[in-house]
């Protein structure tokens, strides 16, 4: 029985010139009750706009120019605002892309779920909180009471996304729209979250619309697939059939751009640039009462040992909460107060960046996951990079700008982009600017914390190529942190597998991937191999 029928939908955005740009241009499809549909395409192809439209929601500046969206035969675009309010979260629920923006920063996660449950189930007081904790437990949260008491910024990425999914399924919707819900999660957490969504689907018979740029997740989740490009559907059908025999060139390019699980050939090892022995770290526990001293919490990292040679790449893999970002933060100087030994060449690497000698600060740079957040939205491209020359090389502003313009041009950011603000760039361009800012310091080591996980597969491949070229030309070492084993295997000479703050595997990439000695590592590798087999990409 058909649940959802979209007929000739056109969503148009006003553009600055006064005309209109069609983000969704004549899209039609149907979805059975309990069915699952993946919508895939590069960023800017209109997939998120389409996802919002299924909740009768248009972004500011957009309008529904033509077409109908029939939910059980009723056109939701023609419904009144009051009906829209009942529809959203009730019959159709959205799991948005960025859980940190979806959650209110000043309320605890428990309080926010209370609010949703109070509305949909009419509970109050103690039964309400009990239902909230049940819901969190159903999301496979290990300690629901502790998570409920946390504010969104105190939870990990995986925990936040589970909380957001909990809020979405609380109203037991007929249609669950997921907009890139697992982009920021590691593969094991992602698999758990997807299993969770599928379990919810099996239990309530709700239908799924799953928007993603990641073909692998869609292959694992959805029966049907819709490939979008420039607002139009270029290919659709059964997921398996479309991915095995892509008919149009665009789909073929998408499939071919997927990173493959293949290690780089090994190179001989020079003396170490970065060393760690018995490295450990504890975050401070939340204060019991304002003004009281914070006590150390449970260990986030324990007994870590590794070495990284100049010009080489150490890949750090693990799920969210495994301590891989903590490790990156300790090396870069975001965090202070580790135990054990951390050496950079001959110098002990201790304390926050501000307390380190300026020369040491310059030699270790960091590139962050989300370029939109790591670039100051009010500074233009040229100044963002020039600032690094001013801070590290004590150049005057004009000289710093000249150098910055040259560096940016060398990595594909032309002069026409220099006076733009980060918000006026694409995700790939933003990450290039962030990379330029790190390389402006002329570092020996760059900590790359999930630098491709916010990007499309095609852009991801370009950024990885750029990183490899920069390493070849400048002999920089990378501490390359990612949840994506395929990306790490493409980049890393050596791989360090972290699980719950401990090293589970360490060695040359080829050995770790081909013959994992440790049970957790083999499960991780197997999960990736399985994905790849399920996909069976056609030769390009």
């Amino acid at each position, binding site marked *: 029985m058909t649940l959802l029928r979209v007929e000739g939908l056109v969503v148009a955005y006003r553009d*600055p010139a*006064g005309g209109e740009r069609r983000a969704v241009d004549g899209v039609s499809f149907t979805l059975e009750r309990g069915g699952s549909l993946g919508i895939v395409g590069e960023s800017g192809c209109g997939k998120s706009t389409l996802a919002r439209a299924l909740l009768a929601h248009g972004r*500011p500046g957009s309008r529904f120019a033509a077409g109908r969206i029939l939910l059980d035969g009723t056109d939701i675009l023609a419904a009144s605002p009051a009906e829209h309010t009942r529809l959203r979260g009730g019959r159709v629920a959205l799991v948005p892309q960025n859980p940190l923006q979806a959650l209110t*920063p*000043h309320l605890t996660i428990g309080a926010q779920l209370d609010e949703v449950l109070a509305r949909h189930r009419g509970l109050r007081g103690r039964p309400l909180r009990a239902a909230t904790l049940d819901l969190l437990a159903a999301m496979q949260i290990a300690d629901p009471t502790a998570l409920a008491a946390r504010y969104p*910024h105190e939870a990990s990425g995986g925990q936040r996304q589970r909380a957001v999914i909990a809020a979405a399924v609380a109203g037991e919707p007929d249609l669950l729209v997921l907009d890139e819900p697992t982009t920021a999660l590691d593969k094991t957490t992602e698999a758990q979250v997807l299993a969770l969504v599928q379990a919810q689907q099996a239990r309530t018979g709700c239908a799924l619309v799953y928007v993603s740029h990641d073909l692998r997740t869609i292959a694992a989740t959805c029966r049907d697939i819709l490939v979008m490009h420039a607002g139009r559907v270029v290919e659709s059908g059964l997921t398996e059939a479309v991915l095995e025999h892509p008919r149009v060139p665009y789909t073929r390019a998408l499939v071919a751009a997927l990173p493959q699980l293949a290690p780089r050939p090994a190179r001989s090892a020079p003396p170490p640039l970065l060393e760690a022995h018995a490295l450990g770290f504890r975050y401070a526990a939340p204060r019991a009462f*304002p*003004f009281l001293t914070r006590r150390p919490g449970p260990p986030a990292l324990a007994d870590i040992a590794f070495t990284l040679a100049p010009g080489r790449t150490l890949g750090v893999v693990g799920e969210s909460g495994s301590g891989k970002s903590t490790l990156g933060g300790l090396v*870069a*100087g*975001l965090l202070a107060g580790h135990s054990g030994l951390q050496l950079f060449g001959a110098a002990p690497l201790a304390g*926050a*960046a*501000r307390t*380190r000698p*300026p020369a040491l*600060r310059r030699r270790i*740079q*960091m590139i*962050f*996951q*989300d370029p939109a*957040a*790591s*670039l*100051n*939205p*009010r*500074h*233009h491209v*040229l100044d963002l990079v020039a*600032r*690094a020359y001013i*801070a*590290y090389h004590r150049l005057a502003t*004009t000289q710093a*700008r*000249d150098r910055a*313009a040259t560096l940016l041009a060398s990595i594909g950011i032309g*002069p*026409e982009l*220099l*006076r*733009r*603000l980060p*918000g*006026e760039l694409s995700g790939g361009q933003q990450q290039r600017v962030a990379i330029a*800012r790190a390389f402006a310091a002329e570092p020996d080591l760059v900590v790359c914390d999930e630098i491709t996980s916010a990007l499309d597969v095609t852009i991801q491949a370009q950024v990885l190529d750029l990183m490899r070229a920069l390493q070849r030309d400048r002999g920089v070492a990378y501490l390359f942190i990612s949840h994506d084993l395929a990306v790490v295997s493409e980049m890393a000479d050596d791989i360090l597998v972290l699980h719950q703050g401990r090293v589970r595997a360490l060695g040359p990439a080829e050995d770790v991937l081909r013959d994992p000695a440790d049970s957790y590592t083999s499960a991780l590798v197997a999960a990736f191999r399985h994905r790849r087999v399920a996909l069976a990409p056609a030769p390009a």
Partner: protein
Amino acid sequence: MPDALADLPIAPTRRPGRLLRALSRPATAIATLVVALHLLMAATAPLWVPHDTSAMLDVPLAPPSAEFWFGTDLLGRDYFSRIVSGGQVALLVASLGVTGALAAGTVVGLACGYLRGVLDEAVGRLVDALMAVPEFLLISILVLALGKSLPALAVVVAVVYFAGVVRVVRARTVALAALDFVRAAELRGESRLVVLFRELLPNLLPILAVEAPVRVSAAVLRISALSFLGLGISPPTPDWGLMVQEAMTVILTDPWLLLFPAAMLSSFVVAVNFAVDGFAAAYGLRGEAGA
């Protein structure tokens, strides 16, 4: 090379399109025009008013005539000249006070939101305490303590709005400080002052642009209310609040004396709010600023 850079095209979002889009909404356009007229009037009134605002020129309560367009008030002064000049002092005091509140509140809110710790806890409680006192009670106490001079009134306005500005700025700063561009600045070893004023402050300007006019219009209304109660601007200065109070005594016989200052006051406050609303929507600031 620097010259070549100076020739680069300006970024596309700094186009005038948003301004035109805001003004293309009739409500915003009319409101902006009204605000502009008010500001122009306040700035230039002394140059062109037909009569001295404090000179007694005719019989009291004379009807409108060619000489006295709005007639005369209780003391035989030209009512038109007084109405035109009546927003000047309140607007000046409100602007000075709000500027002080924004300057101090932004610095304190930024520091609290970024540095956190004991400073934040302490300031937070002080702000709670200030906001717990009913606004008008706080104003009255401060006026009684500081006196009715114009600088004192500006200080009162600054103190009263300080707490609200701290809250808004602190909340936004906490959200901004969680973003990685602040981490990037810290890793560069930038001093705390650089992080506060170079990295964070520019991101607050859109909120302050909404806060400033909304708070000035609210302050004008408060000052008028104070003048009405005899705690604000003193006679013979022309002031809408004072005029309303004077007109109260003759409300049954000459109600238009009440009508003019009341209309001026409300048109200013309503127009400011409509205009800010329209611009905030056009520049995508809605929901970002608490007002």
